């Protein structure tokens, strides 16, 4: 029996070791590098808090990138969560053809990032792209999308709103976990659809929604890299310069690994602040709700 327990621990080992090698050590290394100057060619030299000072003093793109990333999260996350919720509610029940509809909704999520970026680059093409041509056919003159500083960021939000398969699936599962009896009781009491949602579905889905929102905040900050890298390179005039792309350029194109690490640390702090805020707000809102 002792032997058995020991073997079990061995079976957990690859996962824990992988975690240490691929996540814990890199995290520590990043934290240390944030306080050094390092171009990988010569050994890192200690630089204290000077990276933070230099970034504050010289890097005029960083505030822009932070603001863009924040704006992106604020726009994309609510839209994505609401979209996933609406679709999950709409396609919840088993009916003829529902599998096909669900697959159609899930499909954009399956598409590899690079291909997805290229596809939307074509869709957003201001003159020959299908989106503006369809708009023109119904009498609307479409904007320049990715070439227009006002529309570039919303355009990337728009394309991200189509990739909500993960949230959709999780919320479907959440809906299926709600016992049918609850609704049956409500039906007897003559509850309306809205009341059912308000007093049964929503409260029971809440933990799922909180978890999803937290995860989505994280995902959407990260997922701006590939579209920005492939589609715009941060243009027009930094309108789509997000933190991950800025860090990539600083680190891998300008060989400033030290200040790249500093930005990474800043990004993690920023994301943590958002996560905690979201968590506190959603949680507080639940407690308040408990009284009505």
């Amino acid at each position, binding site marked *: 029996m002792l032997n058995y327990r020991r073997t079990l621990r061995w079976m957990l080992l690859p996962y824990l070791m992988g975690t240490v090698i691929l996540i814990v050590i890199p995290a520590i290394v990043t934290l240390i590098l944030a306080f050094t100057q390092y171009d990988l060619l010569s050994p890192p030299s200690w630089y204290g808090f000077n990276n933070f000072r230099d970034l504050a003093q010289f890097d005029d793109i960083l505030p822009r990138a932070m603001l863009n990333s924040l704006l992106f999260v604020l726009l994309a996350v609510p839209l994505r969560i609401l979209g996933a919720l609406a679709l999950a509610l709409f396609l919840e029940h088993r009916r003829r053809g529902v599998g096909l509809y669900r697959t159609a909704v899930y499909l954009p999520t399956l598409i590899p990032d690079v291909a997805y970026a290229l596809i939307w680059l074509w869709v957003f093409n201001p003159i020959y792209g299908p989106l503006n041509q369809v708009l023109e056919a119904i009498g609307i003159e479409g904007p320049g999308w990715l070439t*227009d500083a006002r529309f570039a960021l919303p355009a990337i939000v728009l394309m991200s709103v189509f990739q909500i398969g993960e949230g959709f699936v999780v919320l479907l599962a959440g809906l299926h976990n709600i016992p049918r009896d609850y609704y049956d009781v409500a039906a007897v009491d003559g509850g309306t659809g809205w009341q059912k949602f308000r007093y049964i579905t929503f409260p029971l889905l809440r933990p799922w929604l909180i978890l999803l929102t937290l995860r989505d905040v994280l995902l959407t900050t990260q997922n701006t890299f590939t579209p920005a890298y492939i589609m715009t390179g941060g243009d027009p005039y930094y309108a789509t310069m997000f933190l991950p792309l800025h860090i990539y350029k600083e680190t891998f194109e300008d060989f400033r690994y030290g200040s790249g690490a500093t930005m990474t640390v800043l990004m993690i702090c920023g994301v943590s602040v958002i996560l905690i805020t979201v968590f506190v707000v959603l949680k507080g809102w639940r407690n308040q709700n408990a009284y009505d």
Partner: protein
Amino acid sequence: MIFGDPAERAAYEALVTAFESEHPTIQVQLIHIPSQSDYRARIGADFAANTPSDVMLINYRRYAQFAARGVLEPLGDYLDRSPLIQTEDFYPEALEPFYWEGKLICIPQNLSSLVVYYNKNLFDAAGVSYPNNDWTWDDFLETAQRLTQDLDGDGNTDIYGLGTEVSIVRLAPFLWQNGGELTNTDFNPTVLTLDRSNEGLEALQWFIQLQTVHGVVPNAEAESAEDSESRFMNGRTAMYLNSRRGVPTYREITAFDWDVAPLPQGKQRAGVLHADAYCMPSMIDDKEAVWTFIEYANSPAGQTIVAQSGRTVPSLRAVAESPAFLDPNKKPLNSRVFLDVIPDLKFLPIMSTWVEIEEILTEELQLGFYNDPAPHDIALMMSFRTLEYFDPPQR
């Protein structure tokens, strides 16, 4: 390791094949990265991982960042010892920018410069005469205006008179022609001087107005819908600004006839150097074998192979004057314009942070080119935003 389009790649494949048949003991593997920014990231990462390619083709605007870090082997001594090639065989204009702190670091394969590629069929159709060798800025603008056409009358331009990448290397020759200067010195400058002279601002304004006022160049939307080079190749742009490197790709054009013309002239003669050089990392083992390749690539035999593909304006005087480059049976017919401009060529500053500076300058220039703020404001922003990269603070 090289960069460039597929048609350019073929030229280097031919070079490698010829080299291997002459030196059967040395194997060469060609690595091809299409984009410049990836290329730079790649070289940096390779150095960092201690596994650089043995030979790298690097543009003169980009080698200083590596030279300053001491990771490139100076090749001057190798050249002095070479029985195959001598310093005097090269155009001095090609070698000059590759001297870093007095040492020749890399051996340039070419000395190209900016010229005007033009579509003869579009000129004929519009009844516009071909550019001559001493046309002026005004002639240039007028030609572009007459060639810019809206064929179906829907208010959208269908054929543009001119296409160009919007970047500081494209602007530079016009700036110099007008008597402006980009920086205070050629090597390790300490100040951006674009905003310090009216000549510079005037040239900047003229360049920007090609789009904002005259509309002979595609605007931001049209450019992103289809870039100017692709428009030129598809016969919907009459003139396109590029260096020699476009030639291998343009030779595949069958739908129309084209040629090259020199840049129009401003107050004084000037052109912008485009040169790429073979560089050797200092950390590799078999330096002699690597030198053998670089030497071969820059020997008359090697340069002839690449020149025949159309890719280069050879940096060896003898090859540049030979039919390998001036072949009357191959386009462009007017290849001599690349040689005529050589005495007037100037180069962009050589400094370790130039790539970052150029990136910012280009970003500001594009903002101006597509949105039309006052030239003085653009130049001020350029100076202000690049301050940190001159006499760089330790980062």
